[in-house]
């Protein structure tokens, strides 16, 4: 072997960031590498669902709002990220135990990479989403600049829930099944293909306790209706999402030291 040139060791934070970037890009490549159409497959399922549900509900429930397709697209895209993100993060520790056996890899990298990979699926579909909103709502207002902020909040929520659930999955492999069941029900319990206004008034309070309901509504507010949620609900949403992330992160950090004993 040739003599090596001395290279400075990378700082821990920078190395971790590079590692996360590399692994995320790689996961994305693995997912769509062998398919001829590549990343088209990343957006095809969601777009197909928007199309089907859009046609279905527009004809079944004729008194929908005028921007129903745009509402549906925001809701479906946001929910798919939440649902696949939480589901994949839950199984990340067990399925990626090979990464946990690498001394140089901080444990948190595993769920973070999983959530980021699903975030890329979302981002891949984002241009199409904007086109749909532009056509259906007749334009995008300046409030849409707040949209990335809500995406970041959603990322925090997904990561927090996913990390906590992955701790459970390591102890009890039932956790992934339970999480998938809750997510399947959550699709109906969250205003994904309907809006709060479509619900009977005495059921609306159910949505108050669902952070994903608030997130999707806020995303629709800024992107479609051109309004900004009130400062109180904005603040509350931020606090809840960050609290979930902090709780999940700490639980994960406390338990991750002995993950390998259970795998």
């Amino acid at each position, binding site marked *: *072997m*040739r003599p*090596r040139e001395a*290279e400075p*060791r*990378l700082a821990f934070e*920078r*190395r971790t960031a*590079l*590692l996360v*970037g*590399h*692994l995320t890009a*790689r996961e994305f*490549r*693995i997912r769509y*590498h*062998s398919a001829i159409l590549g990343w088209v497959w990343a957006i095809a399922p969601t777009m197909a669902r928007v199309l089907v549900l859009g046609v279905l509900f527009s004809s079944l429930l004729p008194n929908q709002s005028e921007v129903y397709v745009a509402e549906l697209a925001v809701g479906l895209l946001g929910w798919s990220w939440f649902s696949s993100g939480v589901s994949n993060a839950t199984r990340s520790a067990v399925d*990626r135990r*090979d*990464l*946990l*056996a*690498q*001394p*140089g*890899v901080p444990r948190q990298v595993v769920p973070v990479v999983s959530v980021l990979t699903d975030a890329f699926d979302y981002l891949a579909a984002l241009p199409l989403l904007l086109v749909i909103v532009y056509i259906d709502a007749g334009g995008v207002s300046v409030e849409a600049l707040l949209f990335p902020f809500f995406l970041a909040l959603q990322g925090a929520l997904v990561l927090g829930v996913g990390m906590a659930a992955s701790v459970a999955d390591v*102890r*009890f*492999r*039932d956790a992934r099944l339970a999480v998938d069941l809750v997510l399947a029900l959550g699709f109906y319990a969250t205003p994904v293909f309907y809006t709060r206004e479509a619900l009977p008034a005495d059921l609306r309070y159910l949505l108050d306790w669902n952070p994903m309901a608030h997130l999707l509504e806020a995303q629709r507010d800024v992107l479609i209706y051109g309004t900004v949620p009130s400062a109180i609900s904005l603040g509350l949403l931020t606090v809840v999402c960050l609290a979930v992330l902090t709780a999940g992160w700490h639980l994960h950090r406390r338990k991750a*030291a*002995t*993950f*390998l*004993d*259970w795998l």
Partner: protein
Amino acid sequence: MEGVGKRYRRGARSSLRARFFGRTQAAQWVDVLHDVDLTVHPGDVVGVIGRNGGGKSTLLRVAAGLTEASAGQVRRHATVSGLLALNASASAELSAADNAVTAAVLAGLSPRQARARLGQIAEFAELDDATMREPFRTFSDGMRLRLAFAAAAVTEPELLLVDEVLAVGDFAFQEKCLAHIENLTRQGCSVLVASHVLDHLRRLATRVVWIRSGTIYHVGDPGKVLDTYERSMDEYPGAPQSLSGGGFRKGDGGVRLTQVTCLDRNGVEVSSVARGDAVSVRLEYERHNAEGHANFGVALRRVGSDLAIIDLTTEGSGAGWTTLADRGAVTLTLDRLDLEPDAYWVDTGSYSTDWVVPFDYHWDALQLQVLGRPASGPVQPPHRWSSS
């Protein structure tokens, strides 16, 4: 490491179903490691030896920080790189080059550094560019291991942990890996290596640690410790001694077999038994050491053959260790002896609970004749033919 211990829970329930509906057996704690003190200095190559299940891999995992010690303290002042799990995160569809870069990134390089060293990796693994562009699934196991070692080799760890992977590839490649590790240590890298290939350790190690039932049994000069270890497997109990009644014995005599007899179903001593009849082998022992438990074993082999047709131990049969008294007897009962009629040697032994020390082992000492119609084939289970 100071006083490091690691406990695992055995028999813990791993699913909700087991928790709700499982038998209510309490989980046991098993000390896989206890009271291990070990310091690895820069430039040290510490070899770790011991039987399978003795705690070697756990020691390496704890040293790497992959799992938390249950007791004691682990202090690391070095970046750790491990050859513990080869081909982590390898994707069968992506190219070998792609996988090699990921392996190097996982081992501590930045993606840019890793890509820059791809040539070195391929060179070390002796794979040409065209091969490196092939999807990983087309690689043989040997090629995969070579690539994995090469990817880890181009990183410059301060502490390298190697678990049983030196026996990778052909001899030429093994030689290359050994030379590479020697080269690393000259640059101040310390190495903790677990291996069963004692010749590798003889060459590499500056110190050898012998882990036995979870704790350090011997530590020191590689030559000495490795010799003792090797003898414990084979010659440690000493040269065979002749028994007065014929046959031979070996062992340190800690739990001595005083009399071995074959008994029929009525408990009468016999030297022959009809095929398919019950037979018991009774081992009477006398304890000369302070051990509280021991394993016992009985093997049957044909006269003139080394192959044991029956090889049963107290542990292997699930009975666990035998609790010892100063004098006592252990009996193995075979409900049916369905062996081909012939003459058999009944070999018997007593061993330490971890099987490292044979206390007393007798062979060619007791013969048992199986009677019956001549047949072919070593095992003659009860059977009948029918036609329709």
